[in-house]
């Protein structure tokens, strides 16, 4: 017994190393396969507030540019509004709409790692919940992952765990949008069948299969495509519309019917 205790005492540093390594490996591996860690993420009070302070300073450097971007978007929205067939009054009735939109600021951006998470300055007190869609004026950005009182983290499309339903614009051929972690300007669209006629430059938009995003939100254009190893599906490289390195204002999308869809799907699966 004495010998065992002596052995442990003599190698206490190695044991401490082993112990701490085990702790961190457990934290890493547990969240590696599926979700971001629920307890250790940047939506927490301290991290969120430090990022907020940093962002408050750096926001000033891009105000003019950001303003221009928002004006351009307003212009585009006005054009859509004036050319619409239904009357505007109908849309003001908020009980009839399916999607709720909320603005937010990005306080931490990240695009260099294989699993990128972003932090925004809206949280539970603004009724943000998990699995809300996040877009910018130009296109899709990600999905809300963890929410704290004042902040939330977003799983970016630039995340190897991300998997979003997407389709080729004006057709009904849909596939999954994934990322191979190589270039932050390019994501991959897989599972598009071989019979689909493709052209470089075609627009890719979100599909109707997801209860997170509305249909037809722009994602990017086809940069290049080839057949996968089984020769029956395409692997498509999609160049994103968003400049992922330069994002400030984002919109959160809440599908009011999501809960109902989820419940229905759960019941169907049970039977």
């Amino acid at each position, binding site marked *: 017994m004495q010998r065992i205790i002596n052995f442990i005492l003599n190698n206490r540093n190695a044991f401490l190393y082993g112990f701490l390594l085990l702790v961190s490996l457990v934290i890493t591996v547990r969240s590696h396969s599926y979700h971001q860690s629920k307890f250790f*993420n*940047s939506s927490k009070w301290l991290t969120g507030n430090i990022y907020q302070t940093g962002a408050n300073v750096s926001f000033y450097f891009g105000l003019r540019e950001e303003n221009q971007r928002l004006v351009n978007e307003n212009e585009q929205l006005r054009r859509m509004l004036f050319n619409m067939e239904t009357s505007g009054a109908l849309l003001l009735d908020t009980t009839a709409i399916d999607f709720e939109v909320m603005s937010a600021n990005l306080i931490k951006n*990240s695009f*260099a790692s294989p699993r990128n998470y972003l932090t925004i300055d809206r949280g539970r007190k603004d009724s943000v919940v998990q699995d809300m869609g996040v877009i910018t004026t130009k296109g899709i950005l990600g999905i809300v992952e963890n929410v704290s009182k004042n902040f939330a983290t977003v799983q970016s499309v630039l995340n190897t765990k991300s998997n979003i339903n997407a389709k080729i614009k004006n057709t009904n051929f849909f596939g999954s949008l994934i990322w191979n972690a190589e270039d*932050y300007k390019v994501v991959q669209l897989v599972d598009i069948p071989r019979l689909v006629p493709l052209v470089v430059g075609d627009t890719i938009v979100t599909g109707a299969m997801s209860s997170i995003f509305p249909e037809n939100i722009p994602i990017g254009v086809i940069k290049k495509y080839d057949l996968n190893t089984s020769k029956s599906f395409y692997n498509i490289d999609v160049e994103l519309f968003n400049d992922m390195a330069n994002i400030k204002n984002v919109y959160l999308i809440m599908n009011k019917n999501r809960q109902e869809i989820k419940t229905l799907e759960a019941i169907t699966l049970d039977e």
Partner: protein
Amino acid sequence: MNSTVLLNIVRFVLLVLAQVLIFNTLGFLDSINPMVYVIFFYWYPIKGNRAIFMLTAFLLGFIIDIFSDTLALHAIASLTIAYARPVIMRFCFGVNYEFQNFSFKNTTKVQRVTFLALVVLLHHTVFFSLEILSFSHVLLILKKVFSIGIVTLVFCVLFSSLFSPARE
């Protein structure tokens, strides 16, 4: 003794803030974000309790992990550096390192840069191997280790000469 502890706490906090607010968003050549907090392992006193050193290193890595949403990758890499530092030091500074009155003052510049380079290399190799965690991406790992490692090393050498204690 007390002032050393205080100094290291201040360094700890400042390095965390510098890392998460400045260097994590640097985006040099699109995606190079140097991990300058590695310099902490160069500045940390050589004599002292190794257990406390490892706990500090773990904490430093883990706080940066929480900020950058990287699970516990920084923690593992820092912890490994803290554990391996005596070996790297013996390799770089030879038997001198064993003596009681050893300090960085009586080492050459080349020795110190070698030491930093080895620390950065080990840290980045551990970090990116675990981050990507796939043997089919060995080339991507190597590319990241070397491109980011070189930038980190440049920053560390600059910092070590900028903020070195006054020479006697």
